[in-house]
């Protein structure tokens, strides 16, 4: 009887983590460059109460055996790296990647992190940084007399000092791709770091090979589909409810046993 209680508890736990993933997706529905995740489930071990082929009497054997499953677990949380919709901002340091690839930013410890969030700013030294102050990598420094900055689709960053002089190349956007982006570890604040599952980063120039082109003045929205998340939420909540009912039923049966005497 305790088995049924535990089994329904694993079901409730799994649906709870599903709900947590869904609520994080919904909370980040308008986060720039956010990639939605989904919880994936697997059944747990099966307990063999009676082995197939075991004797059940003198002349009888069990043809299939009795196997009782012990519940469910959240096997993986898979991140979907599909591209989100892009929105126009007109801000010169906003960039969106039209295709595959990640921007690289360097934190104060010198570690490279990867992000799809293309909202960059200038810091007090004129260096290009992300919202959390991580340096854009490879580093770009903008002189104080900058009039305008242009980033073309190939990622070349050009500086316009005044209306008459020719544009001057001051930097180059470099993108990184991974064989398995779903294996990246999410660090929060839109940043990812590589793991053994994602493979090592391969860097390259935007718009070449399988790297996406860069669009200046645009930002990539999240790829969360609210309708889909709502449906997931409803199924998750209802399944949770059903599991709770099973727990009640198991409890009632235990109660009956206790009332036998």
């Amino acid at each position, binding site marked *: 009887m305790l088995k049924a209680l535990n089994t329904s508890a694993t079901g409730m736990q799994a649906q709870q983590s599903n709900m947590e993933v869904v609520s994080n997706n919904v909370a980040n529905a308008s986060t720039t460059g956010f990639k939605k995740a989904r919880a994936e489930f697997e059944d747990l071990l099966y307990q063999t109460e009676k082995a197939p082929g075991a004797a059940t009497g003198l002349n009888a054997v069990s043809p299939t055996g009795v196997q009782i499953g012990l519940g469910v677990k959240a096997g993986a949380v898979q991140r979907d790296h599909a591209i989100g919709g892009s929105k126009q901002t007109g801000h010169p340091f906003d960039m969106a990647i039209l295709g595959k690839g990640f921007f690289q930013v360097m934190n104060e410890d010198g570690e490279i992190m990867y992000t799809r969030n293309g909202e960059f700013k200038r810091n007090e030294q004129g260096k290009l940084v992300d919202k959390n102050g991580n340096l854009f990598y490879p580093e770009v420094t903008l002189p104080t007399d900058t009039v305008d900055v242009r980033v073309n689709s190939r990622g070349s960053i050009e500086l316009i000092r005044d209306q008459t002089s020719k544009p001057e190349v001051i930097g180059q956007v470099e993108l990184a791709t991974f064989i398995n982006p779903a294996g990246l570890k999410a660090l929060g604040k839109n940043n990812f770091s590589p793991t053994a599952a994602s493979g090592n980063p391969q860097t390259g120039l935007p718009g070449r090979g399988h790297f996406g082109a860069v669009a200046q003045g645009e930002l990539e929205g999240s790829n969360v589909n609210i309708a889909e998340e709502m449906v997931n939420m409803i199924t998750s909540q209802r399944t949770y409810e*059903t599991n709770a009912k099973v727990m009640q039923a198991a409890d009632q049966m235990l109660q009956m046993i206790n009332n*036998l005497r």
Partner: protein
Amino acid sequence: MSTKGIYTAVSGAVAHNAKLETIANNIANANTPGFKKDKQLFREYLTSYEKQPTVLETPKVPASIDSFYPINGGDKSFVDTDGTSTSFEQGALKLTGNPLDIGIEGEGFFEVLTPSGVRFTRNGHFTLNADGVVVNKQGHPLLLEGVEGQPFEERFVQVDDQKDFSITVKGDIFVSGANFGRLSLKVPTEKDALMKQGNSLYTIRENFENQMINATQARIHQGSFEQSNVNIVQEMTEMINATRVFESTQKAIQAYDQMNQKLTNDVPRLR
């Protein structure tokens, strides 16, 4: 003492306990991709099975005291859990658009290579590992069709960019436009050959080796995955049924208890 039948009632309680446990597992896995529901089967267990079979004497005369013969416990039976049968009904396919979600419509199981050998699964959630090989969520590689004795490494699906990866309805894999091979989909000749192992994997039972043949009736849907085939309404009804039968067996046990009480307390007083 009249305890003969109390164990029959207990066997009913034990059996319905097992049934509730199976239902609990089905409901817990209602959202597990590719999960196939189980059903607990019962059978009548005659206590005569426990005795050596003897030729029963058939009465040859009209009913008289001579027509009674030993029944070797055949008057008493228990209910016994006979087996768990898995229903391989199709689960609903859910569209996701993720190229590494692969749904099977119809018969067939994917082959994945685990450290302990080839296992079968209907769970259509796959991903790439760091080498660009298509693997399931435990990191076990998905296998292509191959011949006996071929090294498994040659049957891995090597994809470098999941955008260039497509699978036809028949299971032919195209990577960057070039045909890469056909997905291995196996089906057991004998329905009982597969046994659940957990983690959405199935293994072949002992004595059922070489029972897996290529599936011919399968249709592959890339960008969808198969959901579980658990029907909540059915499971809830079965659960109500199981708890009520359980309750009734408890009543039977109580009835026997009351009879025994009379026997031990009231009958001696009649003297």
